[in-house]
């Protein structure tokens, strides 16, 4: 199942679904989340469970629904000025996540049993954060092959 938008392409493994989109800039007068002055960039959400429509950039609203065998992946792009800077010095999209990379302290929002992993990198002069959440840390060895397959099937076109 192939998805392609905003210079990002992904070929999802069986059982996974995804979204590639750009959040709309909220109007100054609206109550929507976000800064009216921000310039939104593409976000990729991949998961091996049904993604809810009401999701935050880093999965709030989705991680709450995760089961023990669920994985959520967010690929969040930052502005071009961030590419190749110190934080984003790592080159290339990580495709080999291992259980020891995950920790409950890496979660944006701590939920019992869950664990997260955050990696910043640059690919094609585009700066990204790869944020991955496991529904249950002890299931890491079982579910990470699926996440790695999803990441391996993802291509980022140069800016």
């Amino acid at each position, binding site marked *: *199942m192939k*998805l392609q938008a905003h210079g990002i392409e992904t070929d999802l493994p*069986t*059982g996974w679904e995804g*979204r*590639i*989109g*750009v959040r709309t800039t909220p109007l100054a007068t609206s109550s929507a989340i976000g800064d009216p002055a921000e310039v939104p960039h593409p976000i990729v959400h991949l998961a091996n469970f*049904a993604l809810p*429509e009401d999701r935050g950039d880093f999965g709030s609203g989705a991680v709450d629904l995760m089961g023990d065998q669920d994985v959520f992946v967010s690929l969040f792009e930052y502005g071009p000025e961030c590419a190749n800077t110190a934080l984003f010095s790592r080159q290339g999209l990580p495709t080999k996540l291992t259980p020891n990379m995950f920790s409950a302290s890496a979660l944006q929002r701590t939920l019992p049993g869950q664990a997260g992993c955050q990696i910043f990198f640059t690919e094609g002069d585009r700066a990204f954060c790869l944020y991955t959440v496991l529904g249950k840390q002890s299931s890491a060895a079982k579910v990470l092959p699926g996440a790695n397959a999803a990441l391996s099937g993802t291509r980022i076109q140069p800016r």
Partner: protein
Amino acid sequence: MTALVVLLGAVVAILAVLVGGLLRTHAEILKRLHELGAGLEPSESSAQASPPPTPVTSREDFQVMPQVPAPPDREHFGGAADLVGLAPGGQDAVSVRITGVPHDTIVAFLSSGCITCQKFWDAFRKPRKLKLPDGTRLVVVTKGTDAESPSSVADLAPSGFPTVMTTEAFGDYDVPGSPYFVYVHGPSGRVRGEGTGPDWEQVRSLLEQATVDAGLTTALADQQVSKPDADQAREERIDRELWAAGVRPGDPSLYSVDGATATDEAGGADEADDSEGHGSSAKMGGS
């Protein structure tokens, strides 16, 4: 005087036409009643049995309300497939798993242009009032940007449910038109029910019926007593042999009267073999 006579003649002519029409209608009614057997004694009716009337449920006679599409001309449910397309607005990409997932999915095929669809777009903006079955996900599908206005779909799309713009899905699900609804059993990926209606209440009722029917089937399956291993192995062997011989589930030879007569005549061990064969054919047909 002449004008009066002409006028009178015209009135008589009109009355004659009216009376003629009434008599013709009356004759037509009597003819149809006669075909249906009305006015005849039971014995007389059977004795004068005329060719059976055309079933009123034939496809030619079946009609739906003008604002909803007619069901597709096929015996079985259509297929189900995962959805890949564009999000409302036509810029973002969306994929939604329908098959091989733990939850069931109601796929709602809508259009931004059809009047009846507007009721569903409005209803989907109030998720709590939809009363979706437990463990069921609603996904809205419109045709792709080749047939729909992305901005119109974006204006209509509900915020609480995924909306996918994909023309391919209409073909995959063999959808006759919009609005149309398909209820897919997630784990098996099989269609449990499909249809349409003028509003969500009617569609929900239709889907509930499909759910109840499926639940009843599951409940009955749970009550089945498992067969001894020897019987199971024998049936599987017979199924394989029949398959290898080119006898498929539903093959007329499995149900032919000639075969039964031959078996009766053969008797003994052949009879036992035949009974096993019939049992296995039913299993094959059901599998």
